[in-house]
């Protein structure tokens, strides 16, 4: 296997001096880092380090008190989720956030909502354009289903699926949006070894196949070091390390705060 299909490029996202607090709790303090096009960027840190908060700030679920986020040259003080989605950010959640009452297929179809143009009247009449649009997007979603190898469950309600499969469906839903930047919040949490390997393969395949830039939070250090290009380390809301996996492995602050401590 030779060079990657999509070489790492320019900075597409930079987080500058972001601080976020809930009441008195400081979740993030002056965090600055950047993400380059086509790279796999990991955010690691012990529990409560502010990793999820960081992702939530990037796609506008939380609004930071301070700092800016630059996405493809546009500067935001705080994102809103809709805007973030429109700019090509998709994500998965730590605690699976699927739509429980819907089938796998419908869940993934929702991922394409931003690409749908027909209004509700056309949809209600199910006339030409709405119907054609629905079919075209169904096809696109089927490609994702094929990619994520979940053909056998496409009509199953997501609530009935095993945990590992739900995680896969969630990633599929994010992929359906054809994101340029994918945020993954602990995609392998709670999985067994085989499922983790599968998920790793999917993450790398996504990066490889679509060239999607990926920011992921993960606890499994082995996984992180294997698949990411660069790693940011957070601890108690502060950044304590940033660099390639090799650099992180030898970073004293990181070792003290995180790697050295059994958890």
């Amino acid at each position: 296997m030779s060079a990657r299909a999509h070489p790492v490029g320019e900075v597409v996202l930079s987080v500058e001096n972001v601080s976020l607090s809930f009441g008195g709790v400081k979740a993030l303090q002056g965090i600055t880092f950047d993400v380059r096009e086509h790279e796999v960027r990991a955010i690691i840190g012990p529990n409560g380090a502010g990793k999820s908060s960081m992702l939530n700030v990037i796609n506008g679920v939380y609004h930071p008190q301070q700092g800016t986020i630059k996405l493809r040259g546009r500067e935001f003080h705080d994102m809103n989720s809709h805007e973030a989605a429109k700019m090509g950010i998709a994500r998965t959640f730590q605690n699976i956030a699927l739509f429980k009452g819907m089938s796998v297929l419908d869940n993934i179809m929702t991922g394409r909502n931003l690409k749908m143009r027909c209004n509700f009247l056309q949809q209600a009449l199910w006339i030409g354009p709405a119907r054609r649009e629905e079919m075209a997007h169904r096809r696109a979603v089927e490609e994702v289903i094929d990619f994520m190898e979940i053909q056998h469950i496409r009509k199953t309600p997501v609530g009935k699926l095993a945990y590992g499969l739900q995680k896969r469906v969630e990633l599929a839903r994010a992929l359906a949006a054809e994101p340029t930047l994918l945020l993954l919040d602990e995609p392998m949490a709670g999985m067994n070894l085989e499922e983790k390997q599968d998920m790793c393969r999917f993450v790398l395949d996504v990066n490889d196949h679509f060239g999607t830039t990926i920011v992921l939070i993960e606890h499994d250090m082995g996984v992180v070091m294997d698949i990411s290009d660069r790693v940011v380390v957070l601890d108690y809301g502060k950044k304590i390390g940033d660099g390639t996996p090799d650099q992180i492995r030898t970073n004293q602050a990181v070792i003290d705060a995180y790697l050295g401590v059994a958890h």
Partner: protein
Amino acid sequence: MNVAFFFEVLIGGLLAGVMYSLVALGFVLIYKASGVFNFAQGAMVFFAALTFISLVERGLNFWLALVVTLAVMVVLGIAIEKVVLRPLVNQPPITLFMATIGLTFVLEGLSQLVWGSQPHGLELGIQDVPMEWLSQSTGINISQFDIFAAGVAGLLVAVLALFFQYTRIGRALRAVADDHQAALSVGIPLKHIWAIVWSVAGFVALVAGLMWGARNGVQYALTFIALKALPVLILGGFESVLGAIVGGLIIGASEKLAEVYIGPMVGGGIESWFAYVVALLFLLVRPQGLFGEKIIDRV
């Protein structure tokens, strides 16, 4: 504008608000302990009042009737827990809410089936007339009965506060309200808690029923007072006893004031919705109600 009249309206409104609070309290108790939005609270008020007055009319002594009614309410609470709530445990809140609407029908039908559907007057010995010394000294007309009702409400809140603070069961109830899992893990059987809290709510309903019955007579319309308590609830927050009191006062006062000062401008009769609009506008500012807890969506 006549200042004395303004105060008369305001105080009248505040005291009427206390009456709302009485009903709202029952909602809050149950919501806090079991997360159930008990739409049947109004029907419970009606049921309690009707049972009491019917017993009295059949010659029972006032206090004995009170005790018997209380016993009936406790039995009712236990029965509701057993028959309705326990099978529905772990269902989404809307399902439980719907069940309490069903319960409303059962209670309404049951009380009228047993006691008949004619209205009754209820005499507690307090006249609904202005207090003379106050009218004479300040020109403000305040009903004796309203003051009495306020006193009863105050007493009730005090009793409840003591109950929650100093009894084992009360503390258990608070624990449940804070955290169901934690309460279970310290060994409090949830089903007992629910039965108890529904019984307590039955007691509160009885008090509210006596007050409202004495003012408006004991009749089917009593069931509608639940609707009066709802804006109080959303204003005060479903989970706050204090909110029920303060909310009641705000709703009562603003409703009376609006009725007097705004009502004529739009054709009157605005009390049917004004409280709701007040509560609604308030919610737009504070979605969790006055004393409710702020909800942070954790993802």
